[in-house]
């Protein structure tokens, strides 16, 4: 096992990986930008190295700085997390060239899957079902012709893309020009690449993905599915496993297809094969492969009982993955909710500000992977994902009840967020029935507005306001409450009794 690794990421995923390091006895090096000097991940690591200014290009997207930081701290390997450079084949290659270990798949596998157009071609060749579509187009006329032959609606998307960026639904020829232009611009900004492809847009589609895992000895297995259909702005907000839609037969078929896909590119380490699932035909199409750990990996950890983050380090250090497909079990039900800093009724636009209070929910079967704490600053520079709530319970209804309890037990003040909105989703009949498609949020909950303050809430706010004027009114407790002091200046506090 490594003695020390560098985590080339920030937020909750950096902390998740540092926890894995702690348990494996591996020292962790954090990296941070100027904006993250006081961030939780910076302070959670054993060491931290400043990369540069807040803008990602000058910090979390800078290959040279990561490698220099690893070299200067004596880290032997780099974990890329998700987002940023995690799916950049050049980064993986540069890490290897520097004599370090990249904790992820080989650069060749990232490259093969990174290009949406090429990966589709190679998956077709490997016998994995793919969505009808066309790649390698450039002129408007070519896109129009392809869309005509596929049939509208079609989806135009970045060949280098992921995470919903550079993606547009086109419902008629008239919409094509602006869709191409904006998708190209977003793709250029996000990936430095403006190639697009076009494919059939499946209405009422479910997004179901299969977790795969491989070691360096050519052994690849799948770890069952995750249903990720609850999305807004093409980004997942709730994921679960198992999917309420799959039969054991379909699950086995999709799992085998995912292993085939991974095998075709010589995959190693954790990866996810995403499928579009058409419930009307019970058919599935390869969408893309994410060649990294996913945001929603905890859902799989809970139903399989395996620690994927720890196994990432272990297989990268040369260990064999000891489980055969038959050893793996999917038990109970897990759900993840992503807590986003966003203004839900304002079109899910990101929100920024200081975190005035963050209280994590607790209880049996509740896991919280957080990137913030009370006092953190949420800036506009990075992804608005603040934390993830993940629950495990024996079946889907119990897991939904548990997640509702977890959401109700969460306090998050200072940045607008989706905690109340997530409750509305979980309480919806369509969600209970497993009928949620990737377009569901925009239609079923379009008119959602935050709860309106009742008398109790108004009373609490008024009393809190008043307290400044009457500091001695205080508590009912007979003894002075030593644990709740307040001072206007910057100060220092110890737990103390008097």
């Amino acid at each position: 096992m490594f003695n020390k690794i560098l985590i080339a990421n920030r937020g909750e995923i950096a902390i998740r990986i540092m926890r894995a390091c702690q348990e494996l006895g591996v020292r962790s090096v954090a990296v941070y930008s100027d904006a993250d000097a006081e961030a939780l991940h910076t302070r959670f690591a054993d060491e931290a190295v400043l990369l540069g200014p807040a803008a990602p290009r000058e910090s979390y997207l800078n290959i040279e700085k990561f490698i220099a930081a690893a070299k200067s701290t004596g880290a032997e390997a780099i974990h890329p997390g998700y987002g940023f450079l995690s799916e950049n084949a050049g980064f993986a290659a540069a890490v290897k060239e520097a004599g370090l270990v990249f904790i992820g798949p080989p650069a060749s596998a990232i490259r093969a899957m990174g290009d949406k157009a090429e990966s589709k071609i190679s998956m077709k060749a490997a016998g994995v079902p793919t969505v009808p579509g066309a790649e390698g187009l450039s002129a408007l006329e070519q896109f129009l012709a392809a869309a005509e032959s596929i049939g509208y609606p079609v989806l135009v998307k970045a060949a280098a893309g992921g995470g919903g960026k550079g993606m547009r639904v086109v419902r008629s020829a008239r919409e094509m020009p602006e869709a191409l232009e904006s998708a190209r611009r977003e793709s250029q900004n996000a990936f430095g690449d403006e190639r697009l492809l076009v494919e059939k847009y499946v209405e009422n589609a479910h997004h179901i993905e299969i977790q795969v895992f491989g070691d360096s000895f050519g052994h690849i297995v799948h770890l069952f599915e995750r249903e990720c259909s609850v999305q807004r702005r093409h980004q997942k907000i709730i994921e679960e496993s198992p999917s309420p839609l799959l039969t054991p037969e379909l699950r086995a078929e999709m799992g085998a297809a995912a292993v085939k896909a991974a095998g075709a590119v010589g995959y190693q380490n954790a990866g996810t094969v995403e499928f579009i699932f058409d419930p009307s035909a019970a058919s599935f199409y390869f969408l893309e492969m994410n060649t990294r750990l996913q945001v929603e990996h905890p859902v799989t950890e809970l139903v399989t009982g395996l620690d994927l983050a720890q196994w990432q380090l272990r297989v990268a250090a040369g260990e064999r993955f000891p489980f055969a497909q038959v050893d793996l079990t999917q038990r109970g039900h897990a759900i993840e909710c992503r807590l986003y800093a966003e203004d839900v009724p304002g079109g899910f636009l990101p929100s920024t500000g200081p975190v005035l209070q963050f209280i994590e929910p607790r209880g049996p079967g509740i896991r919280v992977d957080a990137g913030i704490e009370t006092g953190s600053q949420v800036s506009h520079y990075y992804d608005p994902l603040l934390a993830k709530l993940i629950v495990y319970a024996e079946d889907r209804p119990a897991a939904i009840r548990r997640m509702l309890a977890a959401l109700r037990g969460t306090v998050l003040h200072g940045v607008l967020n989706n905690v109340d909105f997530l409750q509305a989703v979980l309480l919806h009949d369509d969600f209970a029935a497993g009928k949620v498609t990737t377009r569901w949020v925009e239609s079923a909950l379009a008119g959602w507005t935050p709860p309106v303050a009742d008398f109790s809430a108004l009373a609490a706010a008024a009393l809190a306001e008043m307290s400044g004027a009457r500091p001695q009114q205080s508590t009912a407790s007979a003894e002075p409450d030593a644990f709740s002091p307040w001072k206007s200046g910057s100060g220092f506090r110890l737990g103390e009794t008097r």
Partner: protein
Amino acid sequence: MKLKLDSHSLELTPTGKSYMLKIDGQELAAEILRAENGRMELQLRQADGSARKVTAYVSSSGARRWVTLGGQTFVLAKSAGVGKTRASGHHTGGELVSPMPGQVRAVLVNPGDAVTKGQTLVIVEAMKMEIKVAAPFDGMVKKIPVKTGQTVEREQVLVELERAHE
């Protein structure tokens, strides 16, 4: 003490160890059982004598108040005491403001340009997401107080627009 939270008028009067609270004219007796680190345990008693114990989490930032109670979070705007009133809302007529803090990614028009309703004028990017700011009516660009690459705050004016004569 009088205060206004969103559209509600509140009046708070200390009465011994508790408070008399008037919310939009309705009376309520309130007692603080415990308060620490942004958490309050309250006893609320209505005029009919029915009582309720609630735990509330409260935070404040500027004029904004956050209250979490019963698993739901309410964001309230505090305005000056009931006596004083001020013009509500912000003047946006003819001004297009940034819907969120971020960076101006592209300015697609110039002062003097005639624009049509729905036309994208400026693109703002935050957290890697593109937001198009489009013209709400046909008109003419008067002024563009921002430029590409500039960091903008939420509600900062991006474009001043003059409505076309109909």
